[in-house]
């Protein structure tokens, strides 16, 4: 049967009156005929309707048909394929049971109630019944009409999903699960209506002809709030001195009354420590366990007592320290005494940086060499380019260094001999822009050293070198250094000598990398800074200070449904626990949002899923759900209209012959 997407356009069919009127007003338009003399010619009445030929009526019918076809074409005709005899038998009432299997359903007996209710509905509902389960997405579908035994088995096998729920996925999908021929469509949503799952869900389902029946399951004490839930919301391992590791954890009490609960630390399959935690009402408390490091690689923190929602009662974590950060050197292959001394100072300093070994630095010279050779897979975070000179230029390392810092790495560069060469290489590689004047110091380098000027209050180093630490920094002696002028834009000068001349240039890259250029070498012939306490903090602050986010060393923490990694190999978190993926250690924790005990009352969601459940519009539903099955007919109508138009034009064209054959043009 032909239907129209724009039925209002059918009003244009009134235009068929035009050819009819034209036909009624038919008159023969006389053709000019030269004649020798009009002496005896008298004007006479030209007949209007007389002696119409049969072809005139046919032409009128043709024109009416043409107008009707054009009108139908404007109305965007389409055809819904005839329902086959088999499917017509299925037409009728369809009921779809949508069962929430988000993690929160496991608590407060939600899933248990849902099973019982679903089984009851399968028995009671008339017509065809189907099931759909959902959490963050629709998980499984049994379309209406599925055998009830199969549905019963499916309900009995229902299991909660670890992924945080999102009811919008159900609402988006639900209308497409009904068959287009269904005369009555009913969606029964069985859920605990947990707040985080439903707070953003919205779809006017009655608009699509679907009646909605909300069935709330799980215990509910009223006012949209459930009780009896405690959650382990945080657990992290941090170093706690030599050979020890501290497990720091946070427990949340969702109830309106304080509680004291036993908290245990399980490692190696046994409970290693237990302690009582006093939890305020609607608040959190911290707890700490200290373990020997290296005894266990992983552990879990657990609340011992059973509560209403058990899935958030424990949390697994790695006790292993995160991988060390890597640093390496680029220097001349011909290692002179100065370079060797400088390398030794820097290696010792960087290696000793970190948090008692938790955020440690490891020398990864192979990675630095790989980077130097152009190996894109080389991974290094700090690159120390010492004695930058001819070797750097000969090996054409300028672009590699720039690529490293632009890619997020940090590089510290010290000058080689002569300083002017270093300056020109840096400028040519477009790393920094400055003008080199001369090397200050020289003969008087030991007698009258240069000293660091007091830091500006605005300097990011100021907070670190405050108090006694500043004194050590300011007493540092710099025997010689390259004097730089006309520093280019985008370059910071964090430290200066007491005459205001730059003692370090820092350029922060867009990609998060940083280039630090020191106009002196970190050895005792240039400065006594490596011998001072302020050397290490100055070095690390110049390298990593003033970052927007200070990277904390921890394993990636994911929630179920999340993923880690890029490219083809991606870790997908399914359920909580600790996992190792390639060389990466990961922690997957339960979604905290599912622990929230707040729920919606069924009445609160009426607005979200349609307020008027009884006024289903089947035609609209067919339009929505049957779009893919709709067969557009506009092309056929266009072809018919064009054909009719051509016939009409041929038929009604003025005849070329004389007056005898056709002396008049049709109106």
């Amino acid at each position: 049967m032909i239907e129209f997407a724009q039925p209002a356009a059918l009003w244009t069919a009134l235009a068929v009156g035009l050819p009819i009127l034209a036909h009624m007003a038919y008159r023969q338009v006389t053709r000019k005929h030269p004649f020798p003399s009009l002496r005896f010619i008298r004007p006479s009445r030209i007949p209007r309707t007389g002696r119409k030929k049969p072809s005139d009526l046919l032409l009128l019918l043709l024109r009416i048909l043409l107008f009707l076809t054009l009108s139908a074409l404007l109305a965007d005709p389409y055809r819904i394929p005839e329902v086959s005899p088999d499917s017509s038998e299925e037409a009728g009432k369809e009921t779809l049971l949508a069962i929430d299997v988000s993690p929160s359903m496991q608590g407060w007996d939600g899933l248990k109630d849902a099973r019982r209710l679903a089984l009851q509905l399968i028995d009671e509902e008339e017509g065809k019944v189907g099931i759909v389960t959902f959490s963050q997405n629709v998980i499984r579908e049994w379309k209406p009409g599925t055998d009830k035994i199969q549905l019963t088995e499916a309900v009995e096998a229902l299991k909660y999903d670890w992924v945080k729920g999102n009811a919008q996925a159900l609402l988006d999908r639900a209308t497409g699960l009904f068959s287009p021929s269904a005369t009555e469509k009913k969606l029964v949503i069985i859920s605990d209506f947990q707040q985080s799952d439903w707070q953003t869900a919205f779809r006017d389902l009655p608009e699509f002809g679907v009646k909605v029946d909300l069935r709330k399951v799980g215990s509910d004490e009223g006012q949209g709030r459930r009780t009896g839930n405690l959650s382990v919301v945080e657990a992290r391992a941090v170093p706690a001195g030599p050979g020890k590791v501290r497990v720091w954890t946070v427990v949340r009490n969702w109830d309106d009354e304080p509680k004291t609960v036993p908290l245990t630390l399980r490692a190696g399959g046994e409970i290693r420590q237990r302690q009582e935690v006093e939890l305020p009402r609607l608040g959190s408390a911290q707890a700490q366990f200290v373990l020997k490091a290296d005894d266990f690689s992983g552990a879990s923190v657990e609340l011992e007592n059973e509560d209403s929602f058990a899935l958030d009662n424990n949390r697994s974590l790695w006790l292993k320290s995160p991988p060390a950060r890597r640093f390496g050197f680029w220097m001349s292959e011909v290692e002179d005494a100065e370079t060797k001394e400088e390398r030794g100072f820097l290696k010792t300093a960087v290696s000793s940086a970190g948090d008692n070994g938790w955020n440690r630095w490891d020398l990864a010279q192979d990675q630095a060499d790989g980077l130097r050779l152009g190996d894109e897979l080389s991974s290094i975070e700090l690159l120390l380019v010492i004695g930058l000179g001819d070797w750097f230029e000969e090996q054409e390392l300028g672009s590699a260094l720039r690529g490293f810092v632009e890619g997020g790495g940090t590089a510290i560069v010290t000058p080689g001999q002569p300083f002017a060469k270093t300056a020109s290489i840096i400028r040519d590689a477009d790393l920094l822009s400055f003008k080199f004047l001369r090397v200050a110091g020289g003969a008087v380098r030991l007698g009258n050293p240069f000293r660091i000027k007091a830091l500006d209050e605005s300097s990011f180093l100021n907070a670190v070198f405050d108090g006694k630490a500043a004194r050590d920094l300011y007493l540092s002696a710099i025997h010689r250094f390259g004097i730089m002028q006309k520093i280019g834009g985008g370059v910071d000068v964090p430290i200066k000598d007491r005459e205001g001349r730059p003692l370090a240039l820092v350029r922060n890259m867009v990609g998060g990398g940083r280039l630090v250029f020191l106009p002196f070498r970190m050895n005792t012939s240039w400065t006594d800074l490596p011998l001072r306490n302020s050397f290490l903090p100055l070095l690390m602050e110049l390298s990593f200070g003033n970052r927007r986010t200070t990277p904390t060393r921890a394993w990636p923490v994911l929630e179920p449904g999340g993923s880690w990694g890029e490219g083809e190999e991606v870790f997908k978190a399914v359920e909580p626990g600790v996992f190792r993926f390639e060389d990466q250690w990961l922690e997957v924790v339960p979604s905290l949002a599912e622990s929230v005990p707040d729920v919606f009352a069924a009445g609160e969601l009426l607005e979200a899923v349609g307020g008027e459940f009884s006024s289903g519009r089947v035609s609209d539903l067919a339009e929505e759900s049957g779009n893919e099955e709709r067969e557009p007919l506009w092309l056929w109508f266009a072809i018919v209209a064009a054909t009719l138009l051509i016939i009409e034009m041929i038929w009604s064209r003025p005849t070329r012959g004389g007056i005898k054959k056709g002396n008049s043009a049709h109106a």
Partner: protein
Amino acid sequence: MVESAESSLLDPAHLKGIEDYSLLARVVVDGAMPGIHRSLRQGRGNEFFQYRPYEPGEDMKAVDWKVFAKRDELVAKTFQEDTNFTLYLVLDVSASMGYQGDRASCSKLRYAKMLAACFAYLAQRQGDRFGLFAYSDQIQQWVRPQSGSGHLNRLLVSLASLEAKGENDHEGAWEKLSGSLPGRSMIVFLSDFLEAEDSLSERLRFSLSARYECLCMQVLDPDEVDLPDAEAIRFAEMEGVREISSAPSAIRDKYQRDMNAFVEDLRGKLASVSAEFESLRSDQELGHSLRRFLGMRNRRA
């Protein structure tokens, strides 16, 4: 069979394809109507006609001495005798003469030109002098009367060049022509005579004289006789700007009555000045016209 062959040769539908009026005249006169005219009178004249054996006793002036010198034989030259009779062909070539309806195979002008060519050819064969005067609102061709085959050719060429255009101005044309009419003339006037019945009889009053004879041949298209066959027509005047829309079926009877009355009126008025009148249709065969012409010419001769 012979009659049908003759009549087909006289049918304008068959003659319309012959562009050469000289050929057309020979086809009509010699082919379709052999013997229609008197034999040529041979005698003294200027136009050489043929050789014949010299007969003793004849005037030696008739001997062609050049032939005698070549062939040693006496042959006499014969000349076409001048008849002292002049045929003046007067053609109306106004725009209305260009009309050709669906039923006619040629226009009125073409019909008139075919007749004129035949008349000229007959006149030439009779040894008459013949001339042409064609006009509309101005004189298109005026060929002064002469005799001979060369003159016939010139006249036929002039005849072929005539086109129907302009409004007719009978009075102006006859004003110019009447002053130069030679004595003992026969004027054949070919026209549709539309709008002319009042003034024309006055202009043709000269035919009352015994020296002149006037034959007025009205050429009408069949459409002019009983109107075209169509439901509605917007008639546009060919020699004016007037237009009238009408249904021929509605006015046909009245039109035919008016047209017949006009023709009869014209016939009467021309008869009053001793001018003969013949109304022809352009789909009519030429034989009748030729016989009428020759009858009148021989009567005069």
